[in-house]
């Protein structure tokens, strides 16, 4: 899921200081699990804005904020509140915010969150990054542990000289990705494979921005 964090409230207030009324849009998926775009979060922000003398014309948690057509349909029910507001605040990720930008070409749209990374939820409201969407997965070569993401240098062929007792040079809180890969390959009795596989430099053209994909089948011409 996409991990988001609330912006500092003072910073948000500074960004929206020129507007008086707001409509809040959350998201029931990632942002709800992160606690940044849930019903609860909307309620909290509504109260906070009101206590700063702002008006809130309404709020809604769409099913999937990054799903443009679905969100458009769901928001139809709030047509009046949306028309009457000065500004729309989006409480999901940058993708959700840009759904609103597309749907409301005439309204200012502001994000209330910072979007951080694609994360795994390890415990309630604890997240870590294991995949950075490089566009050409190499987990098949690294025992299922991603060095592109979990090694701060993204090294592809083994640990650097900074590894200390299994920890990363960058921080003792980070286990060295290459020691983890080594240990897992050892457990799976695949050390020979690890020894033999020299990985070439990644082809970053697969990650060229902006990425787009269509898996629609082309309709056969009759």
């Amino acid at each position, binding site marked *: 899921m996409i991990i988001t964090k609330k912006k500092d409230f003072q910073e948000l207030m500074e960004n929206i200081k020129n507007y008086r009324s707001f409509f809040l849009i959350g998201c029931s998926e990632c942002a709800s699990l992160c606690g940044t775009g849930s019903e609860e979060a909307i309620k909290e922000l509504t109260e906070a804005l009101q206590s700063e003398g702002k008006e809130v014309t309404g709020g809604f948690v769409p099913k999937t904020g990054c799903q443009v057509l679905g969100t458009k349909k769901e928001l139809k029910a709030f047509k009046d509140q949306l028309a009457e507001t000065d500004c729309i605040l989006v409480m999901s990720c940058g993708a959700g915010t840009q759904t609103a930008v597309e749907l409301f070409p005439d309204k200012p749209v502001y994000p209330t969150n910072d979007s951080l990374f694609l994360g795994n939820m390890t415990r309630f409201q604890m997240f870590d990054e294991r995949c950075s969407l490089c566009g050409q997965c190499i987990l098949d070569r690294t025992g299922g542990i991603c060095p592109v993401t979990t090694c701060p*240098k993204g*090294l592809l062929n*083994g640990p650097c000289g*900074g*590894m*200390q007792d299994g920890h990363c040079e960058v*921080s003792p809180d980070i286990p060295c990705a290459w020691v983890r890969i*080594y240990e897992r390959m050892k457990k799976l009795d695949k050390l020979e494979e690890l020894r033999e596989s*020299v990985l070439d*430099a990644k082809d970053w053209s697969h990650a060229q921005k902006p990425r787009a994909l269509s898996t629609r089948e082309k309709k056969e011409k009759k």
Partner: protein
Amino acid sequence: MSFREALDSGKFVVTAEVGPPKGTDIDEMIHHIELLKGKVDAVNFTDNQSAVMRMNSLAGCKIALEHGVEPILQMTCRDRNRIGLQSDLLGAYALGVRNVLCMTGDHVSAGDHKGAKPVYDLESVQLLKVVDALNNGKDMEGNDLKGSTDFFQGAVVTPEANPLEPQLIKFEKKVKAGARFFQTQAIYDIEKFKDFMKYARRFPVKVLAGLVVLKSAGMAKFLNNFVPGIVVPEELIEELKAAGKEKALDTGLNICARHIRQLKDEGICDGVHIMAIGMEDKVPEILERAGLL
């Protein structure tokens, strides 16, 4: 005799290390180059060591050449992508640099520009392969070069890494990728190093033992606690303590000289790489005490 020829001849080779300045004042660097001239086989020029921004390694190498000292260009993958690395390698060759040490490079978080974007488009194993390609007249995409390089390429290894095996697997990948010499992370336990060399001797590469001069018992403890892959044995710390404050440095120089002598006399490895870290002035004295001058 060039560095490469010296290693091939079986001579016990000595290299030292100079860090280019932070700034444009090169007087001290030239002083160190002059001091090492004729006393060592080659001098490494560090590449923004510890991710602290300084003058680049290539400028240091070129200045060394002008002063008649053979340089080893250290190249890290931290700051340049594959285009920058290859381009700098071609430029270095054109300027007369013949030795290159391929390294990953300390993370930017260790340095003085912590907000920098770390590059690591390639890493040490891949960079070695790139040098091999350039030596064969091709860039890493297989495009022909007008004039190829003829680099003598090396890499680094940490014999005291813990756990060790992942480091050894990487060492073997570096050998396969074309590394012809290795300079090791600092070692202090010669008996343990012998075990490493017994293993390393199975591969067709030359190994220079890395040595860092101990200035005090405090420094030794610091290395043990904070520098990955360095283990200073307790006896050496005791020896430095026993020497007292006044004589600690002198004892440190003796330890270094003693290690060099033993490594050479017992034919343990092919040479030494002395990292003086701020004590470049002392290198000739160490070599004298080791009986190499």
